[in-house]
């Protein structure tokens, strides 16, 4: 413990004080203090005050939609993300590099652009919507539309978490399974899947966390009908526009706490994976 500062003091590399100082100051000013403000404000409301806001039907409905749609979207990505990662890592086909790069599009495309594009696509006369309308499926301006946007925004998280794990997966494990008489299906379900499952879960959690707070790509396609297709972030904005700072803070604080819990979960998951894979060859 006490040896640490001594070693630091002896380091020959300069600039520790100034770089760490700037880092901490900047971090505090931009992120920590403003974020703490929310909790300070929320604390002023008291638990009952927060509960009163959050338990109102409109807020509850929005939380249900935001978390529910994010969950479904993350689940869809939890299935298709690993499939995409598998195809990119294991197979060779024309244009692979192009398709692989395209997976990051939801990261790169500004959310508002994604939002209006998805809306146009799934609106009743859009390219995809025109085929769904006759089937009685309405996507745009319904909770289903929120799910579509959440899936879009979360896809890269799962693919990019699973991909490196699959790339590093030892070919020998599969060979060993085959030599022991396992069929390809048994090898995939009993050997490969357990190996990448932590990565899938991590990707799932990241996609979920992102989708819960997502605003830009969702509000256009959601339709924003109170109690039906109104997401929580939009509700925060509405409360702000009504100068209901307390209400906005209560909702935002609730969302933050839930997101941080999720973040903690992700970190624990990653630490667990690192430990398990630490020395096992």
């Amino acid at each position, binding site marked *: 413990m006490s040896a640490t500062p001594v070693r630091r003091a002896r380091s020959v590399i300069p600039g520790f004080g100034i770089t760490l100082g700037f880092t901490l100051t900047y971090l505090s000013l931009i992120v920590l203090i403003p974020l703490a403000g929310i909790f300070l404000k929320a604390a002023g409301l008291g638990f009952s005050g927060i509960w009163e806001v959050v338990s109102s039907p409109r807020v509850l409905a929005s939380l249900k939609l935001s978390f529910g749609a994010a969950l479904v979207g993350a689940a869809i990505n939890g299935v298709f993300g690993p499939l995409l990662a598998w195809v990119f890592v294991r197979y060779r086909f024309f244009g692979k590099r192009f398709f692989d790069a395209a997976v990051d599009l939801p990261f790169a495309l500004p959310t508002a652009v994604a939002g209006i594009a998805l809306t146009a696509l799934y609106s009743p006369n859009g390219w995809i919507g025109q085929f769904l309308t006759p089937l009685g499926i309405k996507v745009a301006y319904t909770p289903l539309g929120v799910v579509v946007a959440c899936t879009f925004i979360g896809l890269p998280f799962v693919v990019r978490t699973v991909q490196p794990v699959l790339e590093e997966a030892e070919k020998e494990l599969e*060979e*060993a399974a085959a*030599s*022991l*008489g*396992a069929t390809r299906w048994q090898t995939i379900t*009993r050997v490969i899947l*357990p190996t990448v499952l932590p990565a899938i879960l991590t990707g799932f959690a990241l996609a979920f966390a992102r989708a819960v707070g997502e605003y830009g790509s969702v509000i256009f396609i959601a339709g924003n009908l109170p109690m039906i297709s109104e997401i929580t972030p939009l509700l925060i904005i509405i409360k702000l526009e009504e100068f209901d700072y307390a209400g906005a803070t209560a909702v935002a604080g609730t969302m933050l706490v839930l997101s941080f819990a999720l973040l903690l979960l992700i970190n624990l998951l990653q630490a667990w994976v690192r430990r*398990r894979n630490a020395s096992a*060859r």
Partner: protein
Amino acid sequence: MDIHVRGIHKSFGGFKALSGVDLDIASGELIALLGPSGSGKTTLLRVIAGLEFPEQGQILFGDEDMAARPIRERRVGFVFQHYALFKHMTVLDNIAFGLRVRERGERPPEATIRARARELLDLVQLSGLEKRYPAQLSGGQRQRVALARALAIDPRLLLLDEPFGALDAKVRKDLRRWLRSLHEQTGYTTIFVTHDQEEALELADRVVIMNRGQIEQVGSTDEVYEKPASPFVFDFLGNTNVLPGEARGREVFIDGHDTPIVTDTIHPNGAVDIYVRPGDLRLADGGIPGFYADVRSTQRTGPIVRCEAQAVHSGQLIELEFPHLHHDAPRLQPGQRVYLRLNNFSIFPRGQGKPGAKPSDPTVLIGSERERGRLG
């Protein structure tokens, strides 16, 4: 199970990893595939296992050709260099894997599977560790779990790829001895790959020496060491001095000296290379076959005295090794001219040991002359 490899060819892209490999292995034998990196030994092992498919040739298990059959139908126990243990399974689950993936009709009841896995854990001396995960084991323990896992399917053939490659020297030695006794106990036909000649010579019944995708020599450990079939084998199995010589019928003149070695074989007249190990050169008096050399330097490393000398006629640099208590050792002073005889050597036509030379035709080559060596 006796194994016969017939005319196997295998290439990766433009690289010929195996070109025309034939090998017969008797049931219950312990065989080492030995060779430098890139010699094709691992490829051969993987072809036999069914992890690679050859372009040509047969792999006979008994008289059944397996060359086109997938690995899971071959029932071979394969132990990987880095063990390839399933990290998310306990030791017991790892060992039981091969039994649990069997089709329902053939799968033993769970209790039997567990009993069998425990039995194997006993066999590899790891009882009590069944609930551990691979990450909680030492390298040597993992290796033994990998072996137990391979044995669980009652393999027709046990294949080990560099089984001790990833272990440190001490563990490696212990495990080697243990594997030998395990083999005697279980009697599985076993093939293992190694690049370590000591390991191969110590462990195997027979050694297969490979080079450039072909087999250079197959033989007992004594045979390959004492009657190497080619300059490559001679060179690969230990330190080597190469002396220039001149063959005339049965007589071979060393380094231009005029007392020839008389061999049992008739050599085609002309230049030859005489291969001799540093420990097989001894001081002698003139008159018997040998050559003169000038001692350049000596150095003691532990119990061994190493000496660098230069053949007088050809100027060829050679290396000598003596136990430091040997009565000749004190005579090896720099600047001293000494007369050297050859205890044990091999004669090959000039240039065969050069890189790029084709593996030799053994019939013309073997010129070892041990009786004479012992006489001097």
